[in-house]
Each structure stands twice: as structure tokens, then as C-alpha cells.
């Protein structure tokens, strides 16, 4: 019952906004939905007895963490979104459409994470593409059209290939005529291994397109850089996780069917290719939102490497996912502040951020420290555990490449972030920038502070409950 509210609320909200067409309603419903989402998933997280399984949806130990991360990020984005949309120079109708699509986008992501049927996950994941297309297209410039076109077209093709994978999976299941995850896991040992392996290749490439794994990540930097900052934060911190969740579910079936050794190699290749791509492009980057997008590609690569390592690596991957979502959403939201102050996305046109707006500059620097896994950051723990797993499994060369690529990425990010924060600006320019910075309200700093604080506190101390829950989610997948 409670859960149905989560699925029905956005639909009702859209209808009400459509009927009354009041600008105040836009933010009101986004924030109410975010609060509702957050409180419900908090209840599911803390109270096992509230979790449930029905025909199409379920909340259990495997997805409750994903659900909570989505809620947390969405709450931060919803708070930020209020002022951002107020400052955005757009018509009433455009803002209304944006609100519809934002609500539907979050609804479909919630659906992907909670659905327990592979077919339904597919349908809802394609729905996320279609809903977020408008968010990317929002500014209606030539570049936005290009980004939206690439996004819809590449992701639709990728997801169509994933559907081929699902069909192949149904071939491998033999007599079983169900795509329910529980049924699939129970009967996994009876599946035909050839079709199962073939199907996973398609599913990995198909949903990997959506998740932003190299070599099928090309839509990602364009889409993330053209979307408004709150939408970029959701795309990067929530959408990529949903696609990862589906891959993880199917991968788990392969592990149980004992057909995973061969696909692990492909996952390693894709993961390291993602790191490599990110390293190459971040080194010479000229647009800071694209830089963050490539950093997402990198982190998705780390997630898939952790999954391929298995065991402790998978545990580290889940921690990494939590940390990445928190820090990357803060990073993207702060980039919205910078865009408002400087009105440009070019790195070389920006300097002296510390002079122009101290708070934004410090958020920018702290997000940078967080994402590059400086010790109090939770990503430090996950990356450390991952390196440890590589040592335990005697993948020494792999570990060396991993560390070198991460260092190059760190250097690339550092170069851009430091150049933006420090440096001289002329007096007139400084006054102009400060004038812009004054328009930013308290709500454009608070969400990032909460996100970063959570990420750094988790780095110092992971509550026992949480680590137990992560272990359960690794086992329960």
C-alpha cells in the first residue's frame, strides 16, 4: 500500500499540475515527492518487517540500499532545484514540462530498482530514457538537440540489444516461463550455459550503454553536459546505478549457474576500457561538466571491475556506488552554481572562483577531494578494498594498471579544479561575479553540504548496521 503511493504520487502530481498550471505547484510537488520518497525508503531501510514482495515489485535486502541512495540524491536535487529553476530563464510551459518529466523520470528509476521482473525492468529502463530526453533537451539550443538526439538514439539501440539478451535468456531457461528474478535464481542451475552466456553479452552491452561503460558510453558526456545541473546530478548519481542494478541481478544468475568465468573477463575489459577512456579525455578536458561526466564513466568502470572481482570486490563496489552517488551529485550541483556565476562551461575562461564565491569554491574543492578518494572520503575505503582484493586474487598487473589510470585521472581533475579555484581576476570582473553569486540562495549550498558531510562521515565510520546491510545485499542479490 505504502509502496503504491510511491508509484502513484507522481502521476497524480502531473495531472494536478496539468489542470491548475500554477508555477508554485511545480516545486511543491517535486519537494513533497522527494520527502515522501525519502521517508518511505528510510522506513524500508531501518525496518525489515515493512519490506515486501508482490507480483511485479519488491523491496528486499538486495535493492533497499539502491532505493535509499536514489531517495537521498533525489531529496538533495529537489531542494536545489527550487532556486535553480527560479533563476533559469525559461517560459512557464517549459518549466511545467520539466517538472512532469522530472517526476516521471524518478518514478521510472524507482520502478527499475524495485521491479522483480527482468522484462519489467527493461520496460522501465527504456522509460527512463524517454523521460530524461526532455530534461537534456530542456534549453532547446542546437547543442541540446544534438545531445538529446544522441542520447535517445544510442540508448534506445543499446536497450533494444539488451532485449535481444532477454530473449536469449528466455531460450536458455528451457521449461521455465517466467522472468521473475526469484524464479530465475531458483532455477539457474538448470539453464543452458551457451544461451545464458550469449544472453549476458547482449545484456552487458545493452544495459552497459545506459550505465555509461566504455566503449558504449558516447552519449554520456554530451547528455550530462547539456542537461540542467539538477538533471545531470540525477542522471549521473541515480540513473547509472539503476542500470548497474539490472546488470548485477543478471550477473548473479550467471554466478549461480556457474557460467561466470568467461563473462568476468569481458567485464574486466569494459571496466578498464572505461578507466582508460576517462583518463585520456580528462587529461585534456575543456568543459567542466564534461569532465564530471567522464569521471562518472571512470566510476562506473570501477563498479564493474569490483563486480567482476566478486566477493570483497563486490562489497567494495556497493560502498563505491554509495560514495560516488553522494559526491558526484554534489559535484554536479556545484557546477550549476559555477555556471550561474560565470555563465560559461569552459574551464580556461574560469579562474579565481575562491575570490568570486568562497562557498561554491570550497564545495567544488571538497567534492574534488571526495571523488578522487582522499582519505576521509568513503571512496577511499572502497578503492582500498578493491586494490586489496586484487592483491588477494594475485592480479598484480591489473592492480598496477588500475592505480596508474586512477592517478592520471586524479591529475587531470586536479589540474582543472585548481585552475578554476585559484588565479587572478580583474576588479570589475570580480564585482560582476560577486553580483551573480549573490543571487544564489542558501538552498543552493545546503544540499551539497549534506551530501558531502554524509560521504566524509561514512569514510570515517560506517555504522555496523549499514555494513551488515551491504553484506546482505551482496549475498541477497
Amino acid at each position: 500500500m505504502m509502496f503504491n503511493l510511491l508509484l502513484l504520487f507522481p502521476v497524480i502530481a502531473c495531472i494536478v499540475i496539468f489542470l491548475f498550471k500554477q508555477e508554485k505547484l511545480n516545486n511543491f510537488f517535486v519537494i513533497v515527492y522527494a520527502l515522501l520518497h525519502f521517508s518511505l525508503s528510510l522506513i524500508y531501510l531501518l525496518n525489515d518487517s515493512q519490506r515486501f514482495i508482490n507480483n511485479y515489485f519488491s523491496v528486499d535486502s538486495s535493492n533497499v540500499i539502491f532505493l535509499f541512495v536514489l531517495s537521498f540524491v533525489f531529496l538533495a536535487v529537489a531542494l536545489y532545484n527550487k532556486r535553480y529553476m527560479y533563476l533559469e530563464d525559461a517560459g512557464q510551459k517549459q518549466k511545467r514540462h520539466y517538472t512532469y518529466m522530472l517526476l516521471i523520470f524518478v518514478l521510472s528509476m524507482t520502478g527499475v530498482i524495485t521491479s522483480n521482473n527482468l522484462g519489467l525492468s527493461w520496460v522501465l529502463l527504456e522509460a527512463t530514457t524517454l523521460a530524461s530526453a526532455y530534461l537534456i533537451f530542456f534549453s532547446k539550443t542546437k547543442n541540446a538537440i544534438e545531445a538529446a538526439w544522441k542520447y535517445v538514439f544510442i540508448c534506445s539501440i543499446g536497450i533494444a540489444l539488451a532485449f535481444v539478451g532477454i530473449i536469449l535468456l528466455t531460450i536458455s531457461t528451457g521449461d521455465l516461463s517466467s522472468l521473475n528474478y526469484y524464479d530465475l535464481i531458483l532455477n539457474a542451475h538448470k539453464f543452458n550455459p551457451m544461451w545464458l552466456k550469449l544472453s549476458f553479452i547482449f545484456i552487458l552491452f545493452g544495459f552497459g550503454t545506459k550505465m555509461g561503460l566504455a566503449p558504449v558510453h558516447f552519449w554520456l558526456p554530451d547528455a550530462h553536459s547539456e542537461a540542467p545541473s539538477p538533471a545531470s546530478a540525477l542522471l549521473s548519481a541515480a540513473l547509472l546505478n539503476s542500470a548497474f542494478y539490472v546488470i548485477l541481478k543478471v550477473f548473479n544468475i550467471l554466478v549461480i549457474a556457474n557460467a561466470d568465468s568467461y563473462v568476468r573477463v569481458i567485464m574486466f575489459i569494459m571496466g578498464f576500457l572505461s578507466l582508460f577512456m576517462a583518463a585520456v579525455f580528462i587529461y585534456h578536458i575543456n568543459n567542466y561538466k564534461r569532465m564530471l561526466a567522464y569521471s562518472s564513466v571512470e566510476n562506473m568502470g570501477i563498479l564493474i571491475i569490483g563486480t567482476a572481482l566478486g566477493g570483497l570486490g563486490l562489497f567494495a563496489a556497493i560502498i563505491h556506488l554509495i560514495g560516488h552517488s553522494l559526491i558526484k551529485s554534489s559535484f554536479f550541483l556545484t557546477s550549476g552554481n559555477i555556471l550561474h556565476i560565470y555563465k560559461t562551461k569552459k574551464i580556461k575562461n574560469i579562474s579565481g572562483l575562491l575570490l568570486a564565491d568562497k562557498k561554491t569554491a570550497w564545495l567544488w574543492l571538497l567534492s574534488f577531494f571526495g571523488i578522487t578518494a582522499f582519505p576521509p572520503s568513503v571512496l577511499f575505503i572502497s578503492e582500498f578494498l578493491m586494490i586489496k582484493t586484487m592483491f588477494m586474487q594475485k592480479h598484480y598487473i591489473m592492480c598496477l594498471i588500475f592505480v596508474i589510470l586512477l592517478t592520471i585521472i586524479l591529475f587531470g581533475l586536479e589540474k582543472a579544479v585548481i585552475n578554476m579555484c585559484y588565479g587572478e581576476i580583474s576588479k570589475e570582473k570580480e564585482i560582476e561575479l560577486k553580483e551573480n553569486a549573490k543571487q544564489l540562495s542558501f538552498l543552493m549550498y545546503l544540499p551539497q553540504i549534506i551530501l558531502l558531510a554524509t560521504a566524509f562521515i561514512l569514510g570515517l565510520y560506517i555504522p555496523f548496521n549499514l555494513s551488515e546491510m551491504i553484506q546482505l545485499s551482496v549475498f541477497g542479490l
Partner: protein
Amino acid sequence: MENAFIILFGFTMLYVAATSRLMAHINVLIFQGILLFLICTTDMNEFSIFNFLFIAFETLIIKSVVIPYILGGLIKRTKDYRDTEANIHHFYSLFIATVILFIGFLISNINLPAMKMINPLYFGVSIAVIIISLVLITTKHKVISNVIDFITMENGIFLLSLSVAKEMPLIVNLGVLLDLFIAVFILGLLIKHINTKFDDMEISHLSDLRDCEYDV
């Protein structure tokens, strides 16, 4: 009987590969929709009226009326009737398509125990159709022809889903149909905007976003 339809379905892709008139591509889409309907009905083991109505709606209404109508309207609106400057000459494009289709037929003759679990001819032809569509997407130059090839790929996937004797749950089938429809709708909207913002419908206009800027 359905084998003849399936082979005909494979041959329609050769026509798409060989011609540059976009209206002819639209006609192929209509024809493919009808063929898929015939394949479904001749293949049906047990007749149930609900199932029949759903398939008729999916193949006849959506695939051969609504989508071709939307795309045809777009072509008339943008006054772009030909995709002339493809990367590959039509002859080579036809040649590649033929080779892939031939490999598809070969696949359906492989004698593996795993192939016993499916209907091989469906499998071979549908894989060939999917791959030919992907090749054509990379070689064609107009945005509309990319959308058309995307639809032929979806038709290929539909045929592939028929190769499995089992049926997907209805909610999945409906969702797939809805997603396809909305995807075409959104791509259509984007095409309208491309038409107003850019001079013509060449895909090469959509390559401004990049990472490195060279000072020339």
C-alpha cells in the same frame, strides 16, 4: 507456409539496403508489419481471441499504420525524399546485406544441441535483420533513415521473440510496444526541431559536441 513469409521478411532488408528513396523505405515498413502479422497468425498453435487481437493491434495497427504514418508525415514536412550521400555506394551496401543474410541462413542450419531449443529459421533471419539494420544505421546519412533502420531492427527483434515458443508476460509486451511508440514519437519531435534549427537533415550536423578544440 510461415517459412516463406520469414524468407520474404529477410529479403525486404535487401530492398532497404539497395534503395535511397525514403518513401520506399516507409512502404517496406508497412510490408514488414503485414508480414509479421501473417507469420504470427500462421504460426499460432492455439487460437485465443485475446492474443489474436493483441497481435493484430501490435503488427497491423502500430507497426504498419501508425509508425509509417508518423514517419511519412515527417518526410513530407521536411521535404527530404532521398538519402543520397550514404557512406557506402548502394551496390556495396546491397552486397554486405546479402552476405549477412546468407550467414543468417547458414546459422539456421547449424546442427547443435542448443539449437534444438528454438526455431532455427526464425533465429537466423532475425539475427541477420538486426545486424543489417545496425550496419545501415552506420552507413546512412539522414536522420530519418536512421529512425527507419531503428524500426526495422525492432521488427527483427520482434521476429526473434517469436523464435521462442514461450510467450512474454502481457505487461512486458505492452510495455515494449508503448516504449517503441513513444521512442518514435520523441525521435519525431526531435527531427522537427532539427529541421527548424539546422539547414537540412544531414546527420553530420550533429557532431558539434566534442572534447578537444584545435586552434586552426
